[in-house]
């Protein structure tokens, strides 16, 4: 009986964690499936993480730097 309660509580705990993560996350944008690409991005506290994008980056925005003409 005790084992059953442990399983039930574990399932509920997992569902709660999933619900919190879903509630706190940004809306995801579905991406096309071709041309997977990995990139390093910065996360909380400056930690780096590897992100797999399933499409290539088309442009980069930054404060525009001058170029010699």
């Amino acid at each position, binding site marked *: 009986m005790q084992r059953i309660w442990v399983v039930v509580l574990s399932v509920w705990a997992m569902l709660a964690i999933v619900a919190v993560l879903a509630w706190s996350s940004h809306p995801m944008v579905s991406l096309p499936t071709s*041309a997977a690409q990995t990139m390093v991005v910065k996360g*909380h506290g400056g930690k780096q993480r590897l992100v797999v994008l399933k*499409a290539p980056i088309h442009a980069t*925005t*930054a*404060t*525009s*730097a*001058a170029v*010699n003409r």
Partner: protein
Amino acid sequence: MSVLHRTEWRAVGTNCAAAVTADPDDEREVSWALGAAREEVAACEGELSRFDPASDLSRLNAADGRWTPVGRRLLEALDLALRAREETGGRFDPTVLPALAAAGYDRSFELLEEREARWADDWRAGTAIELDVRNGCARLEPGSSVDLGGIGKGYAAGCALEAMLGVSQTLAGGLVDLGGDVAVRGESPEGGPWLVAVADPRRAGETLAVLALDSGGVATSGRDARRFGPARSLHHLIDPETGEPALAGPLTVTVVAPDPAAAEVHATTLAIAGLGEAEAHVSSRPRISALYVPQAGPAVTLGALPVVSQRLVVRAA
């Protein structure tokens, strides 16, 4: 299957790129479209540049209050700038040029020489700009002059995108990037949104976040580039309230808006705003969103920023 056709060149003082989504066999349409984008950027530069003495804007700035014939593009860009000044309560002001020039940014950036900064004592914000659209003329208040640097680039990106995609209906989508001012519309070659990386201003070559856009514009403004003066201690973001390079504001701010000129206006406005002011600015404008990178600490998203990757940055409370 569609593929991406791309061209890159230098114009408006920075690196430019244009790309279209099209069938591999549409070589002629693609060639015309990419050519149209480059021609439109050149036409905009010919009217809007303050560094070309022959441009319409240079002639207007030198006219000392007289009515001056100018091109359609300059009239449209001035109209956008005037609307932006009104919409932002003067936080965006195209007439800061005398203050910017006095501080030392008086020629194209790559030609700047190091010299002591001066402040424009007699400068004041919000000087008059009059437009006569019917007769194709404009007039500035005597002693005033205009800089359309940022909004001009955003305007040019939008015009170039329209010119490019207007060449043929077989073009499924396109992108124009003028030194980080990005305009997109239609399909990417993969069939989904266009992906625009936001460069990390603190670590060269690294990405802070990735944005996904179906249409609209992105622009970044900040004090991490275009620094000048003694020991590169000055930046080009003039606070219209003081006439001097702004003290408050983030290291960089990236704005997503319905069009690239609007993105530039709000990026320039937020680039001289503290975080609280920036939050209030974005929350009262549901059509824009922003990634605010403070001078210290983690980046903050403002509004419904279309970020692809989750939890890369901190959301505003």
